[in-house]
């Protein structure tokens, strides 16, 4: 048994050495794109990967999918796997701006063009194109709209912001964008609570509950992502403060992303505004950037999605560009079809 064991360890070692000197990879053919997402845990990412799939399909390209489930090391393995498979390009949603750098470098070394979707890398010598929402500007515009709502109410509102994972640049920009809007709104809003959520719904629920206990007169809440809206609704309901806009005691609510929940809450009159990332623009721009890179064309290192703010006043006009509205309408049609 011991001999077998020692032989086995030697065999495993030999596997390492042999595997590293085997023949070169085969080419799977043109038009295969590896799409690696950090997670599919929220509707936004599901909508984004579906939009990228549609865009690639429309251009006759094949998509390979890999989800790292929040594990940056796994994502590095997946990127290396794509390269070994001989993909023609990679679209990547990294976990954060720092751990993505070795992945971009691996793609650079292999000569595979790489586009980072929705999350930019930290500064480094690694070359990539990032297609990102202008989180700062969209959050600022959303904050400014909420500020106007507060002013219109005629009373100075106490406000809370749900902050995302501060390892994520998007979370930082959204926090800062809202902060900039509030800095110009001190006559109408006082920010009394900054709730760290690390993109976690349970932490969001606990944080809003605590904020409502500390400040029962809280009058405005902004969440850095719409996926935490259910946590806010739950805390407000428990506190007896969940009312439609225009009703006595309505807490002004604002969000970011433009997901299905936000769309339904807007339509029902509970959400005042949300900053929308234009997923369809970002998907199209990512695939186009890959094609341009493959052709050797110049592509700027950052392509900005300017997004927009949706509220009751412009809903009819811009809902077609809100991904949450489209997903909700598709689900409604699917439901009717099924019935």
């Amino acid at each position, binding site marked *: *048994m*011991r001999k*077998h*064991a*020692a032989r*086995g*360890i030697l*065999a*495993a*070692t030999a*596997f*390492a*050495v042999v*595997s*590293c*000197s*085997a*023949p*070169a*990879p*085969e080419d*799977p053919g043109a038009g295969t794109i590896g799409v690696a*997402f950090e997670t*599919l845990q929220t509707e936004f990412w599901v909508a984004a990967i579906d939009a990228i799939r549609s865009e690639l399909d429309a251009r006759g390209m*094949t*998509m*390979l*999918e*890999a*989800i790292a*489930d*929040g*594990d*940056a*090391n*796994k994502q*590095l*393995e*997946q990127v*290396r*796997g794509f*390269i*070994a*498979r*001989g993909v023609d390009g990679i679209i990547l949603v990294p976990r*954060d701006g*720092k*751990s993505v*750098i*070795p992945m971009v470098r691996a793609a650079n070394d292999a000569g595979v063009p790489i586009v980072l979707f929705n999350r930019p890398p*930290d500064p480094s010598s690694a070359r990539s194109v990032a297609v990102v929402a202008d989180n700062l500007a969209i959050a600022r515009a959303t904050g400014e709209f909420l500020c106007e709502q507060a002013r219109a109410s005629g009373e100075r509102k106490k406000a809370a912001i749900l902050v995302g*994972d*501060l*390892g994520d640049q998007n979370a930082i920009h959204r926090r800062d964008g809202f902060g900039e809007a509030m800095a110009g709104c001190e006559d109408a809003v006082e920010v009394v609570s900054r709730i*760290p959520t*690390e993109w976690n719904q349970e932490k969001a629920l606990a944080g809003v509950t605590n904020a409502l206990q500390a400040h029962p007169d809280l009058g405005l809440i902004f969440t850095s992502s719409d996926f935490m809206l259910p946590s806010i609704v739950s805390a407000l309901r428990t506190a007896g403060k969940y009312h439609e806009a225009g009703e006595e005691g309505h807490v002004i609510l604002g969000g970011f992303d433009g997901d299905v929940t936000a769309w339904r809450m807007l339509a029902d009159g509970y959400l005042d505004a949300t900053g929308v990332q234009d997923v369809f623009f970002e998907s199209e721009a990512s695939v186009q950037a890959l094609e341009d890179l493959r052709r050797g064309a110049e592509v700027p290192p950052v392509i900005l999605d300017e997004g927009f703010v949706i509220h009751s006043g412009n809903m009819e006009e811009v809902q077609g560009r809100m991904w949450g509205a489209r997903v909700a309408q598709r689900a409604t049609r699917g439901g009717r079809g099924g019935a």
Partner: protein
Amino acid sequence: MSRLRSLLAGHWVALLCVVLVAVLGPVVPGFSSSANLRNVFSSLLPLLAVAVGQTLVLITGGIDLSVTAVVALASVLGARVMTADGGLLAGSPLAVPAAVALMLVIGLLVGTANGLSVSRLRMPPFLATLAVMTFVSGFAIWLTRSANIAGLPEGFRLLGAGSLGPAPAALLVVGPLALGVHLLLTRTVLGRWLFAVGGNARTARVSGVPVERVVLFAYVACAVCAAVASILYTARLETGSPVLGQRILLDVIGAVVIGGTSLFGGRGSVLGTVYGALFITLLDNGLNLMGLSSFAVLMVKGAVILAAALVDATRERLERGR
């Protein structure tokens, strides 16, 4: 015939790996390429380091859920010492050795806390290590406010990305570690005590085995192995992260159980764990290269690990019925 049977009994997972390669190689483009097999091997090594440590704990009949937290805390503290972005020893030639030593000490400390909780305070291993995991993970996130730490020295990064000839540099760390634990289990009194404690702690104690110290050793060794893995994971990503390794627990326990180590204690081997980790890594890699959706990959992996656990439970039941 009986010789063939005994050979297969010890190496059936290795046979499964060969079958997996034989099946996926011709149908999955790039799977058998040298670049991909090199990827498989460099992914295998850090996972194997954690799994070897977990093997020791499972052999004693325990379980260590805190390995992921050790990976995370060691990662951020080591990175804080050596990062060029304001690290305590930034730019010093001692930065890398000091950071590596600190990372190993983190393993030692967390392992001691686990071991004492289980052996002296008689806490159930599941609860003790879950509580330690929660505390240590929270501490890592609090220390960094969720921010990652980059700017790690080149000398450290080579541990993750470097190679010595055709072999990854990490093999120089994990190879001796696995061999050392294998020799410990098969050729030393302490190794026999570990199996004795896992087989029947009461009988072991009556026979003069220092059960508490043996259990303490298993948890300390396990956490130190996790710290070794943290060094490799951090070097590969060139980043200290407070959530590093957060999702590897199922792969770690899956690798050990697929390799034949019993969840009920008293049985296991490093060689089996090597095979189990290789199988999990090959499966993960192959399914991803096939372009299956992530949900399908998770379901297949979950089903394989469940099947291995069922085999273990059935074997245990049959042996108790004898």
